[in-house]
């Protein structure tokens, strides 16, 4: 099949327009493209082995993975239902597809009617395509039959049957790449493409312009087409006609997984399931990792092994009490506290949280959870999709703040970031809060929880009203419930943890450096003195509590930990904990917020947390103490 061999296509038009992200390479590019949850990553992992590169696509916040297989560069793309410009995911997938020399289109054979829409679009774009008909085992189990030969003839591209979870059919992936070819384009569309071709250079881009893709139209300075919907409906009808002949349905059998899936979205069974899931996460992340494992890593590895070692290392050269010594190896030193914090406290937590998230994602539970809580989140101006950053926030607010990128609109990102920064206590802090509260009794615990929750709801409701605009409606295709594959969960967790540490570490260092400078220059004491009257007068707490509040800026749990040493009554504990929960998150989360949301918005949120914290806690103090 050498006539179809995939070679590097001439790239003049590509280079001329300088697509962001992909360096011009001599190696042919193979792109794995498909709807979400169709098993692309399994194919990608198989092809690329361990040596992959995860990075952010330039100009976007979407991560994609790139690897090498034989003479090819292989790209895994974000799952999309069509090639367009509706979201950042689509933008990334579109750019990779435009540059690809061959496309391996992974299709979920069970949901072929949905997936072929994208397949047809790829074919209409004139790309060289091979279709991997995945989940063939499930097709058989469901009593369905898909005629792969007929599908291949109708589409005009080769079709390979695979079961990615069992690596069945993967021995033919070489053939799939080699034999990828242009399929049967819609005749009328093809005709129109050619009129456009001279202006934009490639059929693929010509099609996107015809489909009204403004990004591509602007890139080539042509008017974008007005037939987006007509083309889409026509394509949908072509797909339906193909499905009529290639898909044979025998009797449908209900699967256990489908039943579990229905339980998850039924309010009566779904809410208990959610509580159970959250409890399991709490046991795993909150107990096992945050308490037992971190106790070991932070104290034994960090404070007893690493910190003395690094102090000993710099001692011959730098006087520890000098300003440089303080910055490097002092109480908040960037080589001591920050390293311990990042590697021995944050990293285990982040890994645990990402693992829990990957399990929920790969099992298909997460989108159902989003469905279940959708209406409730509407009340605070978010949709069900925001459940991910909110859950992550209980792990690490910094991590969650980065995740708000995936939300549908600026308005939602703004609300979610504000809620995270104000009212979601991270795990480092929760541990201390829980310890202090359990000593203060059940009433204290209840008052604390109600106050924080009420602030959460009030803040969301106010922002919802003030910001105006409309919440993006929830619209998600629920993937079937499946047993997650361990290797995929591990990979995902590793990528994301690595990526988070890479992105966030510098902010933690910078934050520690900032506080170190404040300590040396005496600004820290000034700040504490400034807060003291408010602390003693309005909050009715000991003067020393203001030190705990300021420490809370470095690390939220420091703030809480500082309260351990103070002789506080139960009401005072509640007031102090409400204050440190509501006000300023740790300095790294502020830095990330500045990066994500801009300086102005971050400054408003940051000062807002101080104001709200002192007002709410003060009112509580007047009531309780």
């Amino acid at each position, binding site marked *: 099949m050498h006539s179809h061999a995939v070679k590097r296509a001439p790239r003049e038009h590509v280079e001329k327009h300088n697509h962001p992200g992909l360096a011009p390479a001599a190696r042919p590019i193979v792109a794995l493209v498909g709807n979400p949850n169709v098993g692309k990553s399994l194919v990608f992992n198989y092809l690329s082995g361990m040596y992959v590169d995860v990075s952010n696509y330039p100009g976007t916040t979407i991560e994609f993975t790139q690897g090498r297989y034989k003479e090819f560069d292989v790209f895994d793309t974000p799952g999309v*239902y*069509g090639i*367009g410009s*509706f979201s950042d995911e689509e933008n990334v997938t579109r750019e990779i597809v435009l540059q690809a020399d061959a496309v391996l289109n992974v299709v979920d054979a*069970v*949901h072929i*009617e*949905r997936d072929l*829409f*994208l397949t047809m679009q790829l074919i209409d774009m004139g790309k060289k395509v091979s279709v991997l008909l995945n989940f063939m085992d499930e097709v058989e189990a*469901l009593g369905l039959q898909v005629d792969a030969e007929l599908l291949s003839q109708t589409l005009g591209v080769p079709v390979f049957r695979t079961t990615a979870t069992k690596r069945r059919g993967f021995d033919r992936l070489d053939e799939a790449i080699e034999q990828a070819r242009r399929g049967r384009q819609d005749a009328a569309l093809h005709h129109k493409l050619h009129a456009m071709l001279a202006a934009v250079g490639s059929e693929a881009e010509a099609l996107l312009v015809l489909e009204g893709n403004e990004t591509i139209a602007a890139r080539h300075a042509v008017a974008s087409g007005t037939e*987006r*919907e007509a083309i*889409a*409906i026509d394509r*949908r009808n072509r*797909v*339906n006609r193909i499905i009529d002949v290639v898909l044979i349905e025998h009797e*449908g059998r209900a699967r256990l997984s489908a039943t579990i*899936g*229905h339980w998850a*979205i*039924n*309010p009566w069974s779904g809410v208990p399931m959610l509580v159970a899931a959250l409890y399991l996460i709490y046991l795993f992340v909150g107990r096992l990792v945050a308490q037992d494992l971190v106790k070991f890593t932070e104290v034994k590895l960090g404070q007893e092994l690493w910190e003395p070692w690094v102090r000993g290392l710099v001692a011959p050269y730098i006087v520890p009490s000098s300003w440089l010594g303080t910055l490097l190896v002092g109480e908040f030193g960037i080589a001591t506290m920050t390293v311990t914090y990042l590697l021995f406290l944050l990293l285990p937590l982040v890994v645990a949280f990402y693992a829990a998230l990957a399990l929920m994602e790969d099992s298909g539970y997460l*989108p*159902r959870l*989003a*469905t*279940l809580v*959708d*209406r*409730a989140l*509407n009340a605070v101006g978010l*949709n*069900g999709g925001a459940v991910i950053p909110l859950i992550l926030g209980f792990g690490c607010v910094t991590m969650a703040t980065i995740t708000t990128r995936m939300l549908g609109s600026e308005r939602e990102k703004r609300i979610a970031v504000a809620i995270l920064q104000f009212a979601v206590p991270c795990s480092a802090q929760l541990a201390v809060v829980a310890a202090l509260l359990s000593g203060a009794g059940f009433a204290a615990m209840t008052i604390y929880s109600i106050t924080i929750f009420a602030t959460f709801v009030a803040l969301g409701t106010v922002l919802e009203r003030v910001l105006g605009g*409309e*919440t993006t*409606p*929830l*619209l*998600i*295709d*629920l993937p079937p419930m499946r047993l997650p594959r361990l290797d995929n969960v591990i990979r995902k967790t590793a990528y994301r943890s690595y990526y988070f540490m890479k992105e966030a570490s510098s902010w933690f260092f910078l934050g520690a450096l900032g506080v170190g400078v404040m300590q040396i220059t005496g600004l820290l004491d000034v700040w504490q003195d400034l807060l003291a009257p408010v602390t003693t007068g309005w909050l009715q707490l000991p003067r020393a509590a203001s030190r705990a509040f300021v420490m809370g800026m470095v690390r939220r749990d420091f703030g809480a930990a500082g309260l351990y040493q103070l002789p506080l009554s139960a009401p005072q504990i509640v007031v102090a904990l409400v204050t440190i929960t509501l006000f300023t998150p740790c300095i790294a989360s502020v830095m990330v917020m500045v990066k994500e949301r801009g300086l102005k918005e971050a400054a408003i949120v940051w000062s807002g947390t101080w104001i709200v914290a002192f007002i709410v806690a003060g009112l509580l103090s007047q009531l309780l103490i």
Partner: protein
Amino acid sequence: MILLDKYMAAGRGVLPLDSAAKGSRLLIVEIPPGRSRMQLIRLGILEGEAVRVIERMPGGTVVIEKNRREIAIGAVLARTLLVAPIRFDHA
């Protein structure tokens, strides 16, 4: 749309998706223009297609099923989609 006319003639009203009962079979009658419309077309939810409501949450978030696929539609969007119930005893 002939099918639809028949149901209308039979006195079956058109209602927003969020008011449809759980378990009912529906004909999609109207999807308002906008960003979600294109996404729905890609997913195969067009005017004239038949779907089934498999869950309706308090508050109006709806999950519909079409050919073994389940699609969750938020309350805000479900309110704007017009559907007509299909009753088999009339078919």
